[in-house]
């Protein structure tokens, strides 16, 4: 994107003439767009002199620091606008739309006091002292002064501009009335503006002495440069309104003589009185000097004005051009750093200027933004990491929960069973009375001879029996056996010489107390659950909790203790008339004492640990130790006993396949443990429901070891 051209308007008041030059800068290229001048009705300074006392008195209370937006609204300070109204410069300003660029104005020569100073770097205190001594007190008090240090021929001078800049006043007035915002870049003294232009446009390698002779309506000045160094500024004082060139030259010669300035190599004529006659005259007077108009060869001319433009115009408007030039080249290092713009104007135009409190707030803002950005980013990262971790943990939890489902289901197995018991209670209500019916009938009929039943069957909501007795009162007894017993009919008949009474009785079903039995189960579960909760903290799955692993062992120990008792009962069951004796005690093998005599032997220790675990009903511990024993001592004579115990435990855990695996190697050697192996093998088959195979083993045992304890046990198991 091409950089936008910068526009500058140089405005100069010189007597009754107001001049305007419009320049633009594109890179290092300067282009002249317009040169214009208007005649003033009267000098700005003369016109305002009568009114300034009033304005000044109103400005007296003006506090520069409190000036709104750094602008002066003249409407606020005077009601008499006649001094400015209808002036030709208003049309000039409006024509060129000054708001499009920056404005550089001249200062009035009479408002500048030039004080030689010893040191160009004056302290503020020294500067204030000089200013206070040099300008009227009221202006000093109002702060209506600006200073710049200018060095001419290495002699530093303090230039003090005091009072109001009338040119700026009319510009402000126009901008206020037109509601436009003008941007003031520069208010410069004519000398420094011209010197600046010369120094910037003259070739830097030049070794000539040059003189710029500016001949304006009021401002007439000769500036002398030696090898691109400003050495003199010579005022040319004439009293004529339109001075002759001869008088001007005589005044110049006098000033040169007084300053011991030789004829320059070059003389550049410029200003309102730059014309061919003047050039001719000066050329004749200064034969060794190259006299010419100041042409500004580096200045481009806008093609739109080439028809009306000529070099003389450039020379005439050189001071306005110099002002605009300086305004556009203030970023150049070689320009003269003078500017007499009032501070409030400069400050007012710095829209984005920040004071110490602004910097402090900005620093706080920056620190806050930085810390928040950092903190928020860190927090956002933390949240993202936490979310990622959460997703990962959830996935891991789901996987592990799935893997542990079997274990978790243990937690609610008891609750399910408790619920099931309630269901069973409901389902058993008024059900399964038949054993009690048959028991009572059997008992009663046996105790009331001679009586027997012919039929028993369900009848409606109860049941009916048909029977025979030789003793009629028995029928009444029978009718009271069950609830709502009703004798339907009784009739007699003869069997041989006996008279017998046939009867038919209806009953309601008797109540069987299933609840008591069920309650015992519930109570057992409740105790187990309480024990488990107290000791192990095992809780239900519904609570979204899991079984604490530490307590599982305790729980399992308690459970296995209880279970082993039950298993023991299975091995040594109570016999009754209905439970046959297949489940009698099976014999346990004991190793010879010499094999376990060396109690310090690690192998014996390991064996004893296994037996201890077996006796303590610690199944898993026994299995773990047993597996390790077989791995560590594969040829141990105690290995067979260990295998037998492992097979025994597996059998009780209904792991018949595992039991077979443990027992299998023991069939190879018919040693002392072999009969116990046969006995256990038969028991495993029996428990697994394979009666034929069980009897096969036991029969073999009876045949081969008839006098051995296991042989006798086998006979008992087979019911011999």
């Amino acid at each position, binding site marked *: 994107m091409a950089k936008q051209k910068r526009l500058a308007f140089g405005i100069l008041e010189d007597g009754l003439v107001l001049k305007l030059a419009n320049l633009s800068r594109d890179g290092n290229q300067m282009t002249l767009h317009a040169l214009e001048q208007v005649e003033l009705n009267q000098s700005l300074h003369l016109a305002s002199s009568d009114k300034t006392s009033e304005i000044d008195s109103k400005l007296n209370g003006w506090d520069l*620091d409190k000036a709104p*937006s750094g602008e002066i609204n003249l409407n606020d300070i005077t009601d008499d606008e006649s001094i400015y109204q209808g002036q030709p410069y208003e049309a000039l300003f409006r024509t060129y739309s000054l708001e499009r660029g920056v404005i550089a104005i001249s200062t009035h020569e009479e408002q500048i006091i030039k004080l030689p100073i010893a040191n160009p770097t004056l302290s503020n205190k020294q500067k204030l002292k000089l200013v206070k001594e040099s300008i009227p007190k009221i202006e000093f008090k109002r702060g209506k002064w600006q200073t710049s240090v200018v060095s001419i021929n290495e002699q530093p001078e303090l230039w003090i501009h005091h009072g109001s800049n009338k040119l700026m006043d009319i510009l402000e007035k126009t901008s206020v009335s037109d509601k436009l915002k003008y941007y003031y870049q520069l208010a410069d003294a004519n000398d420094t503006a011209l010197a600046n232009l010369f120094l910037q446009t003259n070739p830097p390698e030049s070794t000539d002495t040059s003189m710029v002779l500016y001949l304006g309506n009021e401002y007439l000045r000769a500036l002398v440069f030696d090898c691109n160094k400003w050495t003199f500024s010579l005022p040319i004082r004439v009293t004529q309104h339109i001075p002759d060139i001869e008088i001007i030259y005589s005044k110049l010669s006098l000033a040169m003589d007084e300053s011991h300035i030789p004829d320059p190599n070059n003389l550049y004529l410029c200003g309102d009185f730059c014309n061919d006659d003047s050039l001719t005259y000066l050329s004749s007077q200064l034969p060794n000097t190259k006299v010419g108009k100041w042409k500004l060869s580096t200045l481009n001319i806008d093609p739109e004005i080439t028809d009306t433009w000529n070099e003389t115009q450039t020379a005439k408007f050189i001071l306005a051009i110099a002002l605009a030039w300086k305004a556009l080249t203030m970023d150049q290092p070689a320009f003269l750093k003078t500017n007499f713009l009032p501070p409030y104007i400069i*400050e007012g135009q710095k829209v*984005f*200027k*920040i*004071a110490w*409190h*602004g910097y402090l707030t900005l620093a706080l*803002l920056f620190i*806050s933004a930085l810390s*928040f950005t950092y*903190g928020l980013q860190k*927090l956002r990262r*933390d949240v993202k990491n*936490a979310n990622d971790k959460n997703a990962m*943990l*959830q996935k891991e939890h789901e996987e592990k*929960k799935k*893997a*542990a489902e*079997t*274990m978790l*289901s*243990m937690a609610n*197995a*008891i609750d399910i*069973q408790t619920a*099931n018991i309630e269901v*069973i209670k409901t*389902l058993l209500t008024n*059900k*399964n009375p*038949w054993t009690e019916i048959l*028991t009572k009938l059997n*008992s009663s009929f*046996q105790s009331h001879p001679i009586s*027997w*039943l*012919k039929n*028993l*069957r*369900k009848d409606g909501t109860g049941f009916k029996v048909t029977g*025979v007795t*030789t003793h009629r009162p028995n029928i009444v007894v029978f009718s009271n056996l069950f609830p709502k017993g009703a004798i339907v009919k009784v009739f007699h008949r003869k069997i*041989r010489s*006996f008279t*017998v009474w046939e009867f038919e009785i209806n009953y309601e079903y008797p109540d069987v107390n299933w609840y008591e039995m069920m309650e015992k189960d519930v109570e*057992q579960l409740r105790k187990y659950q309480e024990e488990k909760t107290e000791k192990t903290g095992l809780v239900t799955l519904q609570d979204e909790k*899991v079984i604490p*692993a530490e307590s599982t062992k305790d729980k*399992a120990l308690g*459970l*296995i203790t209880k*279970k082993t008792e039950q298993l023991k009962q299975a091995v040594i069951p109570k016999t009754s*008339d209905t*439970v046959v004796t*297949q489940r009698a005690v099976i014999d346990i093998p004991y190793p010879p004492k010499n094999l376990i005599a060396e109690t310090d032997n690690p192998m014996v220790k390991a064996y004893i640990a296994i037996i201890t675990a077996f006796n303590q009903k610690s199944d*898993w511990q026994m299995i773990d130790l047993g597996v390790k024993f077989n791995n560590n001592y594969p040829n141990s004579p105690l290995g067979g006993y260990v295998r037998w115990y492992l097979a025994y435990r597996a059998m009780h*855990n209904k792991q018949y396949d595992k039991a077979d695996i443990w027992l299998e190697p023991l069939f190879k050697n018919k040693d002392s443990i072999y009969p116990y192996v046969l006995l256990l093998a038969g028991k495993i088959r029996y428990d697994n429901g394979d009666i034929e195979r069980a009897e096969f083993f036991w029969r073999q045992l009876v045949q081969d070891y008839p006098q051995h304890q296991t042989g006798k046990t086998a006979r008992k198991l087979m019911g011999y």
Partner: protein
Amino acid sequence: MTNTQRNTTVISVLLALVLASGLFLFNKLRGQYNVVDKKNKDLTAKIVQLDKMLAMKEKIERDYEELKLMLAEQSKVIVQEDNPAITFNYLLQVLKWMKRNINFDFSMSSKKVSDSDWNEYIVSGNSHFMDMVNFIKNIEYQRPLLTIEELSVNESNVVSDTVMFSFVFKTHIKTDGTAMNLIRQKDVPAFIQSYVVFKPRIYDKPIETDIDPSLLRIDKITIVGITETRVFLRDENGIIHILSVGEPVAYGYLYSIDNKQDKVIFKTNQYGTSEDKILYLQKK
């Protein structure tokens, strides 16, 4: 107001906005983070517990098997699955526990599906009365929840301990119940006396039982001599037998000898009840 003051004010407002929005966002994110972090801590704790559990998986699974066994040994359990094969197999298992063999007919009657499902079956057959009673008792009192809805028992046509029976029962099912194969035998109470209540005690015709052929049949003998302690009897083949009091005869025994009245009394039970049979010495 100067430009600097205005700019400071603007920056201050920006600072306030930044602080407000920053704090708002910070609190919002902090809240989100706290929520997620708490979840993560909970999950981590659960995973730690699960890890510990999984480290003891084998043990716990064994424990669970034990627990299931314990639950399966409750007085009554409802089975988790049923079909005719399972129930029929269970009936055979019951007979195995009884160490008896009862021949019976078996069929499914109906099937119901509801919250608590059941299948209904019919069993009928002939068996010794006590076997039948024990069969019924086991079905009613063993752990699996089977309910006998109907029972019909009838005496046999011939005088014996055998009865004809039939019963209808339901096998109840619940999906979170116990596997049938885990259920162990329970010791059921032996409260019934061994007596066959369906056996007729008096009958018109004698019981055809195996009688020792060496025993004398009272209706086929004659007294040929009597002493104080003995009686001489001749059978249908003409062979003479000598009996003392208490010695057996077919269906009974010699009860008394009365040599003064030349008579002997036998106690017999040929029709279900005891009868006296008197024989006299035939005077020639």
